[in-house]
């Protein structure tokens, strides 16, 4: 079988990547914007439209974080509205296994799958922390280490509920239910299962159950290493290597020439790391209000508050939440040596995400290489502008991918499972 590239879009809901201040943007929280985007993706023959999940509005020291976009719908509700406004695109809801009840979630997903004619997907996540749990009945009921055990039992219960009409009962210390399914199967049988989460527990969950992984390993070497790791795990569960599609997250900046693209990418990064965001970034590490500091001035002379970072912004990875004093000491040395302001320091030290930057032909070559060497089966794109980023990809990048024979020239099936070439 020839290599096939699959594309999805991670619709913006939160975070500094999205350039909300650009006057060209349509308001991302409005249904009309989501409908227009989903239709654009169908024009571009995309596999899926994704909604992420964040069950607590991000905060900075007890107040909502003001600098990034915020506000998102309940995913299944919104996707069901989109189901009636579209005909082919897959509709994927990120939904947590900690703060949901299995029978309820399984029933909602099955309803979306049925109404969309077999286009639903469930991106299974396990994000749990007491801070998010404060919004839920289940908040903090079981220990963090057992989140993937709960996830597994949750998924098993959902699969049982989707497999027939018989009552399903589970009574363990992590999952309890007795429920009878009420939703008939869709044309694809059941929703497609996506998994996002990179820890060992996450990879195991993917190897056992996932049809697709939404991965954070985007740079080529990491993507290939991840794909090989996942294929080895699949083999251990007796699943063929082709049973799972691997879709790393991606950002894309196109240009007419390589230099033009690079310049546009640098401009996007500078607009993402605003002076105010640079100060807020330091506030997380300092653990105190730095609003009286000038982002164009020197680093704060005041000492940081002791104690490691809390999860309240929800943006900092676990490993970056520890060792903060050491990190601050290194930043001070760097700022001193290079005479950097707060803003300049943050531009320098904030990790660069791996992104695809180049002419449409160059990015298409790169993506074709990923799929031909089985480092990935496609990408899930996070746009920085709506709808501009996606219009550009559909109009300029998609034809280049088609020319290289790695992308469909029309939908061949109607279900998400068919789009993904899953059996």
């Amino acid at each position, binding site marked *: 079988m020839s290599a096939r590239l699959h594309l999805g879009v991670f619709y913006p809901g939160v975070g500094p990547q999205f350039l*909300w201040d650009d006057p060209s943007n349509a308001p991302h*929280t409005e249904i009309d914007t989501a409908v227009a985007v989903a239709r654009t993706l169908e024009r571009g023959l995309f596999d899926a439209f994704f909604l992420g999940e964040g069950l607590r509005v991000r905060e900075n020291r007890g107040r*909502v974080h003001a600098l990034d976009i915020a506000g998102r*719908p309940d995913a299944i509700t919104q996707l069901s509205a989109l189901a009636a406004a579209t005909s082919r695109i897959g509709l994927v809801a990120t939904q947590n296994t900690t703060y949901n*009840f299995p029978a309820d979630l399984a029933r909602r997903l099955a309803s979306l799958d049925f109404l969309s004619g077999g286009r639903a997907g469930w991106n299974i996540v396990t994000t749990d922390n007491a801070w998010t749990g404060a919004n839920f009945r289940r908040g903090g009921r079981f220990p963090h280490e057992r989140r993937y055990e709960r996830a597994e039992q949750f998924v098993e219960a959902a699969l049982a509920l989707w497999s027939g009409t018989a009552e399903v009962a589970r009574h363990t210390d992590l999952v309890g239910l007795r429920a009878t399914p009420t939703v008939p199967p869709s044309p694809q049988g059941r929703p497609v299962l996506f998994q996002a989460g990179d820890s060992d527990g996450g990879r195991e969950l993917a190897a056992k159950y996932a049809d697709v992984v939404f991965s954070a390993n985007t740079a080529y070497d990491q993507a290939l290493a991840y794909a090989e790791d996942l294929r080895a795990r699949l083999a251990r569960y007796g699943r063929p290597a082709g049973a799972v599609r691997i879709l790393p997250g991606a950002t894309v900046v196109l240009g007419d020439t390589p230099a033009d693209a690079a310049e546009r990418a640098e401009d996007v990064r500078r607009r993402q790391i605003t002076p105010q965001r640079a100060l807020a970034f330091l506030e997380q590490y300092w653990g105190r209000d730095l609003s009286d500091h000038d982002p164009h001035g020197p680093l704060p002379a005041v000492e940081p508050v002791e104690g490691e970072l809390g999860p309240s912004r929800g943006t900092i990875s676990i490993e970056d939440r520890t060792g903060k004093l050491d990190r601050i000491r290194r930043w001070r040395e760097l700022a001193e040596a290079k005479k950097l302001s707060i803003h300049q320091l943050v531009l320098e030290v904030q990790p660069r995400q791996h992104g695809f930057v180049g002419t449409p032909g160059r990015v298409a070559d790169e993506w074709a290489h990923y799929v031909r060497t089985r480092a990935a089966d496609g990408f899930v794109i996070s746009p920085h502008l709506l709808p501009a980023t996606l219009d550009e990809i559909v109009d300029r990048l998609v034809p280049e991918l088609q020319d290289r024979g790695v992308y469909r020239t029309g939908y061949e099936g109607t279900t998400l499972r068919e789009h993904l070439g899953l059996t």
Partner: protein
Amino acid sequence: MTSRSLHVAVELDATADSLSPRALAETVARAETAGFTFVTFPDSPVPPRGGSRLEATTRAAYVSTLTDRLGLAPTANVTTAEPFHLAAQLASLDHASHGRAAWVVAADGSAETLATIGGSRLDPAALHRETADVVEVVRRLWDSWDDDAVVKDTATGRYLDPDKVHHVDFTGARFSVKGPLITPRPPQGRPVVVAADDLAEAARPDVVLVGGTGLDDVRTRAARARAAGAPLVFAELEVLLGGSAPDGPWPRGDRLRYTGSAAGLAELLGWLATGVDGVHLRPGVPGTGLPVLIDEVLPALRGEGLLLPPEPGATLRSSLGLRRPESLFA
């Protein structure tokens, strides 16, 4: 109430109409054209007798982008919901429909229902408290973003005004919720809350549904609900049309039931209009009652000037003449 016109809401069959997406879309489009104020989507976590049923909010959301004036009122049960998700789901339905969402509050404390979430039966006192707590926190969550919380101020780099997005800090008998909601304030401020009169004290609905053992009883209960502060009162009426039975309202348990011709029903509704603000019709025979309501009963009411149909683009609140509520936090 001296007005002689009324709002007509109708229950969409839980099973037959929903068992194909296309049938659901067509039925709802016809109901909208006929002039119903809103449609209700019955639901429960336990299966109906016939077997199949789709989840109500998901069904309502599916038709939200296919309609432009019809109110959409899914049923959601308080005892098996995460109140935070429930608030987000209904707010999202309101956003998707540009302000036409309502919530029919169900409060089921039975062992069978609670078992679906691994819980056990709630006694009447606990059920009352749970209903009051869930409805209260859902309202607070809808209010947790001020209408003007999104400021997009490029000078300060602020997308949100952090003083306009609020923790709700709710503590109930069986759960607590910190807030704010993840979803911005819905277009209607708060979706319309609909509940039967036995839940009215706990749920404080915008629309109270009253049953009764006969027409006089319905009027008495409507007056009582109004005296207790209900903004709008609708009579529940089960309808069996076109049979050979003589026309007339028949009490059936606690709910009024009409059997007979379409013309007779239109006449009965005209009479009811003097005692209630609207009626919620439940076609008794799946799949057959609604077409008669659409083709015969509503045109008859329209002809008499008795029907209050919604205008294109209107929110459900404005169709019902309800004001848009101020936020508790404003």
